[in-house]
């Protein structure tokens, strides 16, 4: 937001590009969770575009992004976050957008600041992103440009280098001061992760998925479901995805034709999906676990309806799991 505004202030036409990877924290998660308790829903990128008065192109890269997640050339950060490869890819995709969509632009700008992020925003990584994305010296970082060699837009005089900044490090005070100067009262949470891959629990769930399936791969539905519910794997060959509140239950309902699903029949409770193949004793185990999360958790017996993907249902009577029966190691992600 700041970087775009700095360049706009020099009379340059700026358009925004926002990428959908499937791992975005906002958006989906806001839409899924129980609507009563959420902040007003807004797409931050669109909101920023409106504040700046610029066009925003939202690009779905979720399919091509798999290769970045599965085979990052520069490795992962603390979790499964391939931040450096991600930046290289996104800058490269922006250039491609220029070629494919006839968007006529002269250079790409980002809001990167040297030293702000431990993996991808370091002095050593800045030239790597510029080179490997193909942007080379057409990649301008207005917020830390004074700490870097002049780029083509600066050398050509398209952008006045004197009006750019030399921010560095993790301290965001200078950015906040600049935001204040521009009159920005509301902006995305500083240092707030916007990608689930930086989240330890989420990364553990993704590793578990790969381990259980015996291959490092995923579909969009897989990574969406990792954002939702309690994931409990009582046996290596199946796990349960159990809704934690009304919004999640509603979201899981959309997957009833893809997964065997369970719900307690005679007490209020969650909807749960079974990811994997279950047999008779597994089904009972799954039903007892789901019953544990229903309002009938303390009764001796209750009924659980188990429905296959083809819609065939059976009701089974089970005893809900006692808290001590639920092994801590079954909770995926923790």
């Amino acid at each position, binding site marked *: 937001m700041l970087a775009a505004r700095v360049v706009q202030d020099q009379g340059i036409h700026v358009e925004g590009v926002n990428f959908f990877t499937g791992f975005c924290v906002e958006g989906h998660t806001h839409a899924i969770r129980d609507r009563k308790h959420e902040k007003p829903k*807004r797409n931050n990128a*669109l909101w920023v575009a409106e504040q700046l008065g610029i066009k925003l192109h*939202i690009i779905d890269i979720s399919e091509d992004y798999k290769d970045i997640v599965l085979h990052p050339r520069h490795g992962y950060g603390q979790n499964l976050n391939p931040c450096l490869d991600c930046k290289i890819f996104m800058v490269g995709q922006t250039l491609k957008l220029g070629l494919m969509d006839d968007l006529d632009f002269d250079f790409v700008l980002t809001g990167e600041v040297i030293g702000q992020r431990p993996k991808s925003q370091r002095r050593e990584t800045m030239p790597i992103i510029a080179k490997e994305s193909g942007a080379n010296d057409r990649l301008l970082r207005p917020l830390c440009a004074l700490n870097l060699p002049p780029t083509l837009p600066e050398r050509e005089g398209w952008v006045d280098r004197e009006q750019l900044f030399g921010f560095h490090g993790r301290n965001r005070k200078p950015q906040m001061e600049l935001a204040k100067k521009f009159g920005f009262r509301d902006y995305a949470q500083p240092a707030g992760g916007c990608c689930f891959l930086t989240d330890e629990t989420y990364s553990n769930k993704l590793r578990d998925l790969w381990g259980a399936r015996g291959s490092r791969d995923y579909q969009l539905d897989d990574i969406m479901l990792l954002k939702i519910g309690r994931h409990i794997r009582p046996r290596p060959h199946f796990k349960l995805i159990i809704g934690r509140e009304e919004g999640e239950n509603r979201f899981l309902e959309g997957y009833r034709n893809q997964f065997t699903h369970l719900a307690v029949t005679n007490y209020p409770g969650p909807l749960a999906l079974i990811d994997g193949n279950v047999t008779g004793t597994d089904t009972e185990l799954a039903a007892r676990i789901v019953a544990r999360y229903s309002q009938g958790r303390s009764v001796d017996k209750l009924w659980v309806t188990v429905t296959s993907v083809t819609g065939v249902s059976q009701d089974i009577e089970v005893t809900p799991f006692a808290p001590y029966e639920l092994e801590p190691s079954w909770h995926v992600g923790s």
Partner: protein
Amino acid sequence: MSDPSQEVMTVDARGLLCPLPVIRTQETIKQLSPGTILKVLATDPGSLEDIPAWCRVHGHTVLETRRERDNILLVLRV
């Protein structure tokens, strides 16, 4: 409201979550001529905020928004 003689196209984004309804709308609009009417069907309540916001920054007009329980309809003029 839309002129009944105008060409009307439809995007079905039901079951998709933010920002996919916006992306589907954006991809469809790229192929349409100015003046075309586009109906967007969605279920994600975020669409009621995001699609009008996207239209505002791209200069398209929102003619109508309607929500009946989980079903959302937006009518846009390209």
